[in-house]
């Protein structure tokens, strides 16, 4: 392989290499430093005059005297069953002191798009044991459901609780966890690792760690390596894979950094105009394929800068993912765990995974009614602050009280409290029974007669 020493310019993570033979777009590039160490990069732009290379590591030590080797192929990831239980760097190198991975296959990390015609519709209910998810924002196997959080909120604890408790009722199948850390602190990473070790999940996990002090540009490939691994485990080996990506905000910052280095016209708040497409190439790598056993369920975690849900990172994510779980600072301040605010939260695939066939016939209507009542009670809080409780009508007062009850009994639960879906729905009915029955306009009469505690008990008495 020919080595060029024609680097002409280095700007941020980009190298500009001159006078090469024809180089392929997207090729993997090795950069050889004077001490013999090798860094990796990828071709972003190629012409007969100039090749632009994006380096995935720090450019420290690279100079005009460094050698550049074009490998003639796009970036591949060696994958194999042996990866389970291993810890790799954000660039895919083992960092747990173990041996190199013996690859069964080498796969392109960009990953081709799943043909929509080949997809199977996700419809299997995953019980996470958390009421605000199972009851009102149900997760379905094959879904991509991010956690929108803020700095200092317990999103990691929630993610771990989900990873620990998530199960498909009545099924015993091979599962795996792929965990990709991008720019999180060592301390946060340890928090995850210790929990994985304690629960034995590590044996079934593949961990990719790009920590806060690792090169930012490496974060561009970390999620892609993780998802390539996940696709192999899911679609080649037939496992049900849960992918946790944290923190996508750091990923987007790295994307912005590269855009700036390329002197591109920036989009909103300086993020590149193609960020939607770029994020989609990550988030869309989830789902089920007809005729294949496995599945990929994605849990990206992101911290909203300034808790602002309209910031481009949560905004573009929300436009791609199938809903979002929103962690709220207000509830956290009230000391409620998990501080999930159901109002802005959503699971779009919920309807596919609930109902008589999957959970219980009253699920959808109970959830709708809980939302409507909580939203109404929550609005009244604002009013009470101005006019006082006494100015409220009788009806409004019951809704106001409902909102408090909802937060304290439905939302609040323990770190390891694993509620069944039936338990969750029954709590829901208990709360709804504090409202006048004619206010339950979202629920059909038949269901009220069957499940409402008042009528339920009456039926029993007879």
């Amino acid at each position: 392989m020919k080595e060029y020493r024609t680097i002409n310019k280095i700007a941020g993570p980009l190298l500009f290499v001159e006078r090469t033979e024809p180089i392929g777009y997207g090729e993997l590039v090795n950069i050889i430093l004077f001490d013999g160490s090798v860094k990796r990069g990828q071709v972003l732009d190629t012409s007969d005059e100039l090749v632009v290379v994006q380096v995935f590591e720090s450019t420290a030590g690279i100079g005009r005297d460094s050698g550049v080797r074009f490998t003639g192929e796009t970036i591949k990831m060696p994958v194999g069953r042996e990866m389970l239980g291993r810890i790799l760097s954000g660039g895919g190198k083992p960092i747990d002191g173990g041996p190199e991975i013996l690859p069964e296959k080498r796969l392109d990390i960009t990953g081709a798009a799943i043909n929509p015609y080949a997809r199977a519709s996700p419809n299997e209910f995953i019980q996470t044991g958390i009421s605000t998810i199972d009851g009102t924002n149900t997760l379905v196997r094959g879904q991509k459901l991010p956690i929108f959080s803020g700095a200092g909120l317990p999103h990691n604890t929630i993610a771990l609780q989900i990873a620990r408790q998530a199960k498909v009722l009545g099924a015993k199948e091979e599962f795996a966890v792929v965990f990709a850390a991008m720019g999180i602190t060592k301390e946060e990473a340890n928090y995850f690792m210790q929990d994985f070790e304690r629960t034995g999940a590590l044996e079934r996990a593949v961990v990719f760690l790009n920590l806060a002090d690792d090169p930012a540009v490496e974060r561009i490939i970390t999620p892609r390596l993780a998802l390539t691994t996940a696709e192999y485990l899911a679609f080649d080996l037939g496992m049900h894979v849960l992918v946790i990506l944290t923190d996508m905000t750091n990923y987007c910052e790295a994307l912005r950094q590269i855009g700036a280095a390329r002197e591109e016209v920036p989009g909103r708040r300086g993020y590149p105009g193609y960020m939607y497409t770029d994020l989609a190439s990550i988030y869309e790598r989830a789902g089920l394929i007809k005729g294949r056993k496995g599945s990929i369920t994605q849990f990206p975690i992101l911290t909203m800068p300034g808790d602002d849900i309209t910031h481009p990172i949560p905004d573009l994510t929300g436009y791609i993912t199938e809903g979002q779980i929103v962690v709220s600072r207000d509830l956290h301040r009230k000391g409620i765990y998990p501080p999930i605010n159901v109002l802005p939260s959503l699971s779009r695939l919920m309807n596919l995974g609930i109902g008589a066939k999957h959970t219980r016939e009253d699920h959808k209507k109970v959830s709708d009614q809980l939302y409507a009542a909580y939203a109404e009670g929550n609005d009244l809080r604002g009013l009470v602050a101005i006019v006082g409780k006494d100015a409220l009508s009788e009806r409004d007062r019951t809704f106001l009280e409902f909102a408090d009850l909802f937060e304290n009994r439905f939302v609040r639960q323990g770190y390891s409290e694993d509620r069944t879906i039936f338990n969750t729905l029954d709590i829901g009915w208990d709360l709804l029974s504090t409202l006048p029955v004619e206010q339950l306009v979202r629920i059909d009469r038949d269901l009220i007669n069957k499940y409402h505690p008042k009528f339920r008990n009456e039926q029993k008495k007879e």
Partner: protein
Amino acid sequence: MEVKDKKSKETKQGMLKRIAGPVVTAVNLDAHMYDVVKVGREELMGEVIKIQGDNTIIQVYEDTSGIRPGEPVSNTGLSLAVELGPGLLTSIYDGIQRPLSVLVDKMGDFIQRGVSAPGLSHEKKWAFKPLVKTGDKVQGGSIIGEVQETNIVHKVMLPPNAKPGSVKTIKGGEYTVEETVCILDDGREFPMMQRWPVRVPRPVKEKLNPIIPLITGQRILDGLFPIAKGGTAAIPGPFGSGKTVTQQQLAKWSDAEIVVYIGCGERGNEMTEVLTEFPHLEDPKTGKPLMERTVLIANTSNMPVAAREASVYTGITIAEYFRDMGYDVSLMADSTSRWAEAMREISSRLEEMPGEEGYPAYLAARLSEFYERAGLVKTLNGGDGSVSVIGAVSPPGGDFSEPVTQNTLRIVKVFWALDAKLSQRRHFPSINWLNSYSLYLDSLHDWYDKEVSPEWNKLRSWAMEVLQKEAELQEIVQLVGSDALPEAEQVTIEVARMIREVFLQQNAYDAVDTFCSMKKQYDMMKAIRMYADLAYAAQVAGVPPTQINAVKSKNELPQIKFIKDYKPALDKIGKDMDAEFNALRSAA
């Protein structure tokens, strides 16, 4: 899509000079704007989008990884076109009309590149029935025969640009789409299939003014903000506010004869959902599976952006083709913002001077050209057909002041404004009744008068007034509480709540409520009006609002939504309300 080599036109080969993602530069190529070219040794499909000296700039519809400078580029001399003929219905295509089912057969579950597949099957035989005979005069657009494609009859037409002539031979029988079915006197031969360049609108005789609503079965749309057949509507909203669900509801229940649904840069699973659900759903009008009238275009967010840019044109061209047969077609594009972003991405790679928020300066022009292809028309063959276009818009941060929303609103006649505040409280469809509008109300007035009831238009305006009034009253309530309102206005608040909760809220996932006939909409609104009249009368007679609002029978009204044969239940509620109010008034 397949572009046949026209050997005569094939010119000297060019050579790739630069590759930067989906945009590549070739030199030495004889090309015209929008010619389809084959790029690299793998012959990836691309389209010429800029010519600068000897440099031809090409957008490539497939992934360009691994392609090197120096590889060949050849020009087909044709523009990007779709194949039109029997076989379109029930298909699912990518943005450049490659059937996704064929791609699965050819290259497996993941989309690889370098595979071409014709839009229509060239092998399948269709039973062709002539509708003209030897000696008949025909011209561009003439219907010469038909094929029973699904439960829909596919009219076989001469291409719009065909010169007039008279039929020499035409014979019924089994044909592939490529085989000649009709020969004219001057020797011209026509197969069932025609090709049409997607960026050129198909010609019509005349554009007419729309006067019939597209009935969708969605109360807030049909009842308050109707779109006409041949009309245009935009549905902007932040993520998760209900754009896709609303569009899918329209695809399912609207009384169009043909539906073209474009998933433009959106989720793969949403298209899968349509594919799995539609074959099992029945058209409320014909009782036939909905899939049989549907064409799907799916260029999801992770598929190549250049093909995403093309997907909207592919879809509208197919819609126009069915319109030319005399059908009412409705086209949904979810989401036009992703289409605009594809334009932006390509434009920025061309290093064009950006306009507002980085979008190209021609954004507004492209949007209006697209929506102009909607309309109720007199077709070349003298029939009536229509294309209604409903575009979803995904404004960043839900902020409607951004360029795509604003430029769209300047063109479309109906605005369904989605509101995150409503969706958060699960008020669906979360269309804001104060901000939305329909400019078709006047032209559809007569239709509602005749087909629904002479009362309808009045009921509609009444409901809008109550909702307006409520908004004003709510501002006061926020300051002083509802008990401080005058008594009549406390009744108004309750009536408005009923309009919202009974009429406007509609659950797309309830087996019955998902579709509401115009008759039922009218009956429901009438019942609310009846309550209002009784309530105001009681209030005037001195009954206190707390007692009025406590009337039990009205609480049964929301249940009407979930009942299929609602008439007996609704009549009973009417009687009960009467009785309850009578009792109240006599007590007062």
